[in-house]
């Protein structure tokens, strides 16, 4: 298995940077998910790795060897396209065998490997079907088998689940994950769906506007977001914009400023609070924040309250429901909200 090192790669279209100084080191056998909203540069990055887009700057190395000057067909990347890009005029077997044919692998050997791949993706018996005779999930597996058949250095998955029915997604995600773990192929996947990324990646790279926001595992990103964007993009966060005054005062437009858990530099800042890390109590006493319930919703496992904490600010509090104890508070109830210091993230405005 190979490593992938992306060093300060940028892509400019005119003066606009689609990808700006992207760096990432992928270990052998690791699966990294590039995550971000559309237009964040994740697909451009994938296409630069594949060779369909030339990097304006920087270097990309596979197992230490630069590949930026290689054309796509010499990069040995196994790509699964978002729409699978199966060759419609070739059977499933011919699709899977295409890369082997291009590599001049003998018929017998190629046929053996195609069978092996068909078995791997559990499509035995469908070898002679044309793509249009296969279901979406089957097509996706053919695409995966085709990419894996060439024994690629790196596997690239472009939105691998987006074309599947919602009901199939988690199952396919798990299958891909298992396959990837078992065979240990170094993989980069691109997705705009944080659940997909969370479910499949060993590590995640969150991108926005062509730049990396944060790289880390699921827990890093969820518990220790480095930017307000990551905090809101990964899971849910209440973002409260305000201003740090003195040392621990955070003015945000509420009745009185919040007292921060630790010292911060003065200046504008954004506080991020996960809804489930907040504690809600009736009454206006012992809390960091006070407010009024706008609405409370009982969702079975959890109860969510929207609380007005300032004339123009509402936050959401989510708590596990405890039968008999934790029911919805009626709108208009005076409440106080408290949290543990570790739940509080404050980002200086950039």
């Amino acid at each position: 298995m190979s490593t992938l090192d992306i060093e300060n790669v940028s892509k400019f279209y005119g003066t606009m940077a689609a990808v700006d100084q992207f760096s990432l080191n992928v270990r052998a056998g690791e699966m990294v998910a590039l995550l971000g909203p559309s237009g964040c540069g994740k697909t451009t990055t994938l296409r630069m790795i594949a060779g369909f887009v030339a990097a304006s700057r920087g270097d990309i190395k596979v197992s230490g060897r630069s590949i930026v000057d290689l054309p796509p067909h010499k990069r040995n990347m196994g790509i699964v396209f978002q729409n699978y890009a199966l060759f419609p005029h070739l059977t499933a077997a011919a699709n899977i065998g295409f890369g082997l044919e291009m590599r001049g692998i003998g018929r017998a050997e190629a046929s053996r490997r195609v069978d092996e791949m068909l078995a791997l993706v559990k499509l035995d018996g469908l070898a002679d079907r044309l793509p249009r005779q296969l279901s979406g999930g089957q097509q996706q597996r053919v695409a995966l088998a085709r990419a894996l058949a060439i024994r690629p250095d790196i596997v690239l998955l472009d939105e691998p689940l987006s074309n599947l029915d919602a009901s199939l997604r988690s199952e396919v995600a798990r299958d891909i994950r298992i396959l990837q773990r078992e065979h240990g192929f170094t993989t980069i996947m691109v997705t705009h769906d944080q659940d997909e990324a969370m479910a499949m990646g060993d590590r995640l790279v969150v991108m926005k506007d062509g730049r990396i926001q944060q790289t880390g595992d699921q827990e890093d990103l969820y518990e220790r977001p480095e930017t307000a964007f990551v905090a809101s993009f990964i899971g849910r966060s209440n973002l409260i914009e305000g201003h740090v005054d003195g040392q621990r005062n955070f003015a945000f437009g509420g009745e009185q400023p919040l007292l921060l858990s630790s010292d911060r530099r003065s200046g504008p800042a954004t506080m991020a609070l996960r809804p489930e890390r907040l504690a809600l109590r009736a009454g206006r006493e012992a809390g960091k924040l006070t407010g009024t319930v706008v609405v409370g919703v009982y969702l079975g496992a959890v109860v969510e309250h929207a609380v007005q904490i300032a004339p123009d600010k509402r936050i959401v509090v989510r708590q596990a429901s405890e039968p008999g104890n934790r029911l919805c508070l009626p709108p208009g109830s005076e409440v106080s909200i408290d949290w543990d210091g570790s739940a509080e993230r404050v980002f200086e405005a950039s």
Partner: protein
Amino acid sequence: MTLAAATPLPSDRREKGHLAAASALLTPATAVVAVMLVAPLLLLLRMSFNRFDPTKLMVEAATAENYTRFFGDAYYTDVMITTVVVALSSTAFCLLFGFPIAYRLARWQSRWKNAVMLLMVLPLFVSSTVRSIGWMVLFSHGGVINLAATSLGLGTMTLMQTTTGVIIGIISINLPYMILTLQSVVEGIDENLEQAAESLGAAPARAFWRIVWPMALPGTMIAAVLCFILAMNAFATPVLIGGPRFHMMAPLLYWEFTANNNWPFASALALILMTTTLVMTVLANKLILGRQARA
């Protein structure tokens, strides 16, 4: 038999209703085609079995003499061979020149694309006669090409009244049709397929031949057939560029019809030309697309 099976389901009934409505909508078109296309063809077929008389012109008869005359006279078969050769070679060149242009255009992402597409369509606004006259200016004795060739020391280069000149003229007329058809054919082929092929180790040329070409083949056949039919029936170009000594089928049958008033023979010529075109088209389709299906 269950009740459900005996009674059509509502959706079935609706489908039948749609079918009936669709057939009703098709009826006027079918009638127009029958009246405007089939009836004249049948008339043509009937006339081709009539006899020509210099005085009475067309005499009702049931004779095959117009057909035996065509196939028995080397002149007519020569003209047909010339026509087929010109049509085939102009179509081959259209394909050769047209495909790369169409491919580039289809894959081109530029704000100039629409402008360039318009440039492609523009020649179609000028009749083939006018364009042929343009070529006459270029080709003729003392024309631009001849002058250029002479001044470059290439000797005199005569394209006027040559087969090459006629083929060039036909290519210039048919090329936009070829490019426009192929452009939409290529646009219908997902660019990801080529990239998939490349990522699997196919060099661009190989990706083209292995993936794009077989997928484009049916549409390409349509474009080629379109050019072939246009070339088989070319009139203005062979007359204007080919000159009096260059004979192709369409001018020949027009001449039989108007100058000789020999409608029976002209009808036979028309049907022979049409049949040849049709048979060659079907054969090419069978051969090329059939082989692809087997592969």
